[in-house]
């Protein structure tokens, strides 16, 4: 246990140093993607509010919508970390070979790598929340903020396992890029990344609650920003545990099947 924690921390710091080594690229891509999302949604919603001549829709005013989009696009970054590639690249280029030789689990290494960027983004999110509280006079609450952060962390763990499942398909498929894009789009839609879920018509709203994404993305944001939320914190924690177990089990299964397909390329 202690060994695994140490390995996790090592993998984490290695990735951290990589981020610092290529920091310009890292921040540029981060700021650009978040800023683009916030600016576009601000302009869009502003004109919607103007045309309908209202100051509030479904409980959101313009200020809250901006905060919502800001938080959800950063949280989206937290959940997907550096995106697809950390495992499939090892499989395609044979870097997996060395990890198979070590008397440590490969997943521990990779979780360290995965969580690095997530935690950096999380820090940005927390700092921005403080900014909102003081400058945009948002209606935040310290308790729900902490709950939201905890939920985001467990969502990240669930997403790490989900990403692992997808990436392990690299044992069979020669390219998993499109698979990643597909899941990413479904998640963006069902998790409320495009529009808050309350804006959906009833039938779609009901349907997407059968997917894990509202619980992993939308409701943690609702909790974080102290917006009305259909589920209590503890229900959400239970639902998270459920999905984490499912994803964990599935990735173990896929790994178990896939390792027979691995041919140790590159040497």
């Amino acid at each position: 246990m202690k060994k695994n924690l140490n390995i996790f921390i090592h993998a984490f710091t290695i990735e951290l140093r990589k981020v610092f080594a290529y920091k310009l690229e890292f921040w540029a891509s981060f700021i650009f993607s978040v800023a683009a999302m916030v600016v576009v949604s601000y302009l869009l919603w502003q004109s919607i509010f103007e045309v309908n001549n209202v100051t509030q829709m479904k409980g959101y005013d313009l200020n809250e919508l901006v905060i919502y989009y800001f938080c959800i696009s950063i949280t989206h970054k937290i959940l997907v970390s550096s995106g697809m590639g950390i495992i499939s690249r090892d499989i395609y280029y044979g870097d997996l070979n060395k990890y198979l030789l070590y008397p440590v689990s490969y997943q521990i290494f990779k979780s360290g790598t995965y969580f690095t960027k997530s935690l950096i983004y999380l820090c940005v999110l927390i700092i921005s929340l403080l900014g909102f509280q003081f400058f945009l006079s948002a209606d935040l609450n310290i308790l729900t903020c902490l709950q939201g952060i905890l939920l985001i962390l467990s969502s990240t763990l669930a997403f790490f396992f989900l990403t692992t499942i997808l990436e392990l398909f690299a044992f069979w498929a020669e390219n998993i890029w499109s698979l990643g894009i597909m899941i990413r789009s479904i998640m963006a839609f069902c998790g409320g990344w495009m529009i808050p879920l309350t804006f959906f018509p009833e039938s779609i709203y009901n349907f997407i609650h059968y997917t894990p994404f509202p619980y992993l993305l939308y409701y943690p944001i609702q909790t974080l920003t102290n917006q009305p939320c259909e589920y209590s914190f503890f229900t959400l924690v239970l639902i998270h545990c459920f999905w984490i177990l499912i994803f964990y089990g599935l990735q173990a299964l896929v790994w178990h099947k896939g390792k027979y397909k691995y041919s140790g390329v590159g040497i």
Partner: protein
Amino acid sequence: MIKVKNLSKSFKVPRKEAGLKNAFKSLIKKEYITKAALNNVSLEVSRGEILGLVGSNGAGKTTLVKILSGIISSSSGSVSVLDFDPWKRKNAYRRQLSLIMGQKAQLWWDLPAADSYLLLKEIYQIENKRFHSNLDKLTQYLGVKDQLNVPVRKLSLGERMKMELVAALLHDPQVIFLDEPTIGLDIISQKAIREFLKEYMLEHNPIMILTSHYMQDIEELCPRLALMRAGEIIYDGPLNEIKNKFGDIRSLKFDIDHQRSGLEDFFSKRDIKMQCTQNQVSVKIHKEKLTDCMKDLLNNFSISNIQTSQVDIDSVIESYLSYEKKS
């Protein structure tokens, strides 16, 4: 102890033909061909032994090493190393194992070697004292102490390879597979690595399998040789024996200015294969026929600069690989 019995491995590779039309075809239906990489290989290596594994490109050497280190599964047959099944990847086995791949860096590319070593210390749970004494000894011996804090990507190939060796041996492995450890190194570095491996062997008495295309590595390090061709082991025994088998063959070299065509007739009549480079000719002749042959040559052709020698190990193996193919 390594025990391999009737080991076979085949790879399934998708058949791909060039061209756009075929690319579309393969989208709909993928065809696979099975490629046998190892065919009924049996082998035993005991502690304190270095086995030299030699064979042409694609013979299956790396595949064998990959199976022994648990990276890939076998198709059939049994494998046990130190009484472990490598494919189960037990931590108790992996703690004693080391695989050095000349082709592929294992150290973390962006980090200085010293940092990678600290990570390895954690991975293998090496105690502080043992770690520092091993690190000192290894870097001292290989002469890379000064570069420990340089990011690995900034090292030269040879320096990096030495760093890789240090990384691979920090945890005092008992089973060591070396897959072309001297590839691309200069003569001095090759020699340093060979000397170093000898030293390690004396001190730790591990099981070692070494594959290399440089015969000097094999000659200096491996008393025992296994020759592989097309996934099969066609010779397994002492290196000396195979040398003796061809010990009666002499290589003859001389210069000739003209009369080339006559020369070809001359040798083909005696069933000897001739190799030419510009105006130098070299042939391999049984030692009993050598004197006669030279007499005839001198009588019929104007040749100069004649040298005879025992054949070197390269040509011994070359002729063994082609000799067995014919029979």
